[in-house]
């Protein structure tokens, strides 16, 4: 039986691990970073950088396995991230909403978030964007397909909000530079 949604097919197409292992590993790493830096702003920055480095590699995995075609406009890109990207890697989907007038900025509201299972933030970590790695992943992945973006958390349930909402903003399409250099 064919899966009903393209995201399901993409998720079925990759190898899986128990989410618990992933969630605990991520959590232990954030905790170690907090111990080492003692400054939540710096940890936010580190998580974003790590995400970026993961994103620039994950995009290849995505393009080779997700079976998607070129997005004709940014609106379509956001939909692909929400319905196929999130599903393929984290097994969850997001809802795209809140577009601005010229369709360069939107919100991705996560329907569920495996990163935060078992997580509670103590008082001392109030400024932390625990899931900041996701911002970096999206930014890194989109940069590899010629889009410069800004990705930030708008709402975060660990900080007392009622949802996990990412704000995704297209800054510019970057023209690919020809000719490619063969060496270096």
């Amino acid at each position, binding site marked *: 039986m064919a899966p009903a949604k393209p995201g399901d097919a993409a*998720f079925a197409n*990759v*190898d*899986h*691990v*128990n*989410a*618990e*292992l*992933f*969630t*605990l*590993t*991520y959590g*232990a*790493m954030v*905790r*170690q970073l907090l111990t*080492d830096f003692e400054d939540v702003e710096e940890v936010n920055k*580190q998580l974003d*950088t*790590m995400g970026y*480095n*993961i994103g620039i*590699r*994950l995009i290849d*995995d995505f393009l080779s396995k997700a079976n998607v075609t070129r997005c004709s406009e940014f609106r379509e890109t956001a939909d692909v991230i929400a319905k196929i990207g999130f599903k*393929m*890697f*984290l*097994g969850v989907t997001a809802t795209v909403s809140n577009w601005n007038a010229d369709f360069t900025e939107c919100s991705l509201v996560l329907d569920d978030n*495996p990163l935060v*299972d*078992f997580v509670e933030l103590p008082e001392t970590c109030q400024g932390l964007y625990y899931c900041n*790695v996701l911002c970096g992943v999206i930014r890194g992945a989109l940069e590899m397909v010629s889009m410069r973006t800004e990705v930030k958390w708008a709402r975060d349930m660990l900080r007392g909000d009622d949802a996990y909402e990412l704000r995704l903003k297209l800054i510019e399409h970057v023209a690919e530079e020809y000719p490619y250099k063969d060496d270096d």
Partner: protein
Amino acid sequence: MRAGSREVAESCLDGITMEMVATYCDRLHSSKPDLAARRIEAIGFQVGQQLAERYTRDRPRFTDHLEVIKFICKDFWAEVFKKQIDNLKTNHRGVFVLQDTRFRWLTRISVDSPLTPSEANNTTLAAAQAGGKYLYFPCGLIRGALTNLGVPCAVSAEIAALPACSFIIRIKV
């Protein structure tokens, strides 16, 4: 849905572990490899403790050290790496060597192949250096799990030929 039954793509976990190594070994402490190793090992230790707690929830208490080590080789390894440890050796005096002939986080590492026989030794060394930093985390995982199950120990790792490696457990008495 119980949290434990959920799954994510393997590339997510691989991405995090690779980037954790890059962050600590290359960006934060590139001039202090020992410090980077300790930090990553500490992360593994924490995760190992938590996983051991979860994976043993529904089983009877272990009766001796060997039983705990066997649990690490089979059930624990299978949960984390989707295969079992291939070979277990012991000197019967508190040292156990766990060999994984195809350790997942070493399977995608490559080093230049040797041009001459004299270079072959260097290649082995290069392989050990390139792969070694990916073993701090699993060393911590093992030590965390064993400590949680009442077996205080020290854990180190060796790479002979990629992607095989051995974890050496020394039980503290």
